[in-house]
């Protein structure tokens, strides 16, 4: 697989993924280069190429996981339904096909399943964090009432 195809696939994938945000926002996500002004765009621009390159080569799970997590973590708290949140992975299938990269369907399926796992992890994490937050608010009272010995260290 040539670098050209990899680049073309990445570009097309980024374009289609960006299209799931409102047009005005997609423009900002695409064009604002400063990662601190545009963290979502930066995450997409860093993560998607990484995923494509792994899908075309080693399928290193740790690296894919880290890259997918960056994108899914964002979409898990934005205005997307669960299916919308992970839909961007499925887009890859047809893009590969169109660029003549056959036989990658199974890999995309694996990516999609992983994305779904990550989405669920994020959502579960959110509810756990919410519970911990509620306890932190009343932390002194809880301890004064002796309901709990010293908690684990730190604020988390």
């Amino acid at each position, binding site marked *: 697989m040539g670098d050209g195809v990899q680049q073309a696939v990445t570009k097309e994938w980024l374009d289609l993924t960006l299209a799931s945000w409102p047009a005005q926002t997609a423009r900002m996500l695409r064009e604002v*280069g400063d990662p601190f002004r545009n963290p979502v765009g930066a995450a997409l621009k860093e993560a998607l190429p990484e995923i494509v390159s792994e899908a075309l080569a080693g399928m290193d799970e740790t690296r894919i996981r880290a890259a997918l997590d960056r994108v899914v973590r964002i979409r898990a708290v934005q205005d997307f339904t669960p299916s919308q949140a992970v839909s961007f992975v499925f887009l890859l299938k047809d893009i590969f096909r169109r660029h003549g990269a056959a036989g990658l369907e199974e890999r995309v399926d694996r990516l999609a399943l992983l994305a779904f796992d990550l989405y669920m992890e994020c959502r579960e994490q959110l509810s756990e964090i919410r519970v911990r937050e509620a306890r932190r608010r009343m932390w002194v009272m809880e301890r004064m009432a002796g309901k709990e010995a010293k908690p684990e260290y730190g604020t988390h």
Partner: protein
Amino acid sequence: MELTSLIAVAIPYAAIAIFLIGFSYRIVRWSLSPVPFRIPTVCGQQKSLPWIKAGYLESPWTRMGVVARMALEILLFRSLFRNTRAELRQGPKLSYLESKFLWLGALAFHWSFLVILLRHLRFFLEPVPAFVGAIEAADGFFQVSLPVLYLTDVVILVALGYLLARRIWNAQARYISLPSDYLALALLIGLAGTGVIMRYFTRVDVIAAKQFALGLATFSPVAPENLGVMFYAHLFTLSALIAYLPFSKLVHMGGVFLSPTRNLANDNRARRHVNPWNYPVKVHTYQEWEDEFREKIAAAGLPLERQ
């Protein structure tokens, strides 16, 4: 006077009248509305301890500091420039160019417009003041054509073109734009465009134009002669623009001076700001509080005002 001359005289006068009344009304209404709280947006270190360097411009605590801050804001569009500063070291990225262009485009438009206005004083004053001549000389520095090509004429058209293109092609700017935003740009482009055509292409009779303008300025209007259709177009666009101004967002030219987040000093804790309509409100007094919790206060061993 012919009908056309009448229109050429009546419309500018009417427009000026609407402008003067409307614009003063807006300014007076703003200035009469009180500033109940001192709410500067502070953009730098406060003046506190003597050994900490305070931001004289970004967090002004004297009147001079405020004047300097406002001057930077009004003359150089300081806040708009802030857009670009942080990204200067991030490398030449598109967004950096984008936000820099907004600042540059806005600055270029406003300054050229001011210079062109001042140049136009030639038509309204006799003898022509020396500074007008000086401005013309500077503006026409690149004597590339005859009549002399004024730099500002080029700059204003490019800048306005950019500001319009930005509203049309930038999805974000398009989304927030209202019809009135395009109207204002259209009027300005029309005004600058007709002026440029008149000066460089149809070659208006400058003497006749000056006669007409002087007549208007001295309240002894004379009928315009041999001025051509472009002159009328120029005159009417101008009239439309100044008559529209008080009803539009273009009043920002006056409003910017009154903005309470910019024109107040950050000396809140040193100098008390008075709210003219400050009124008494229902509060919960200490005595009410003590009465409600008397037993608990006593039980906790805290002192009571009344036993």
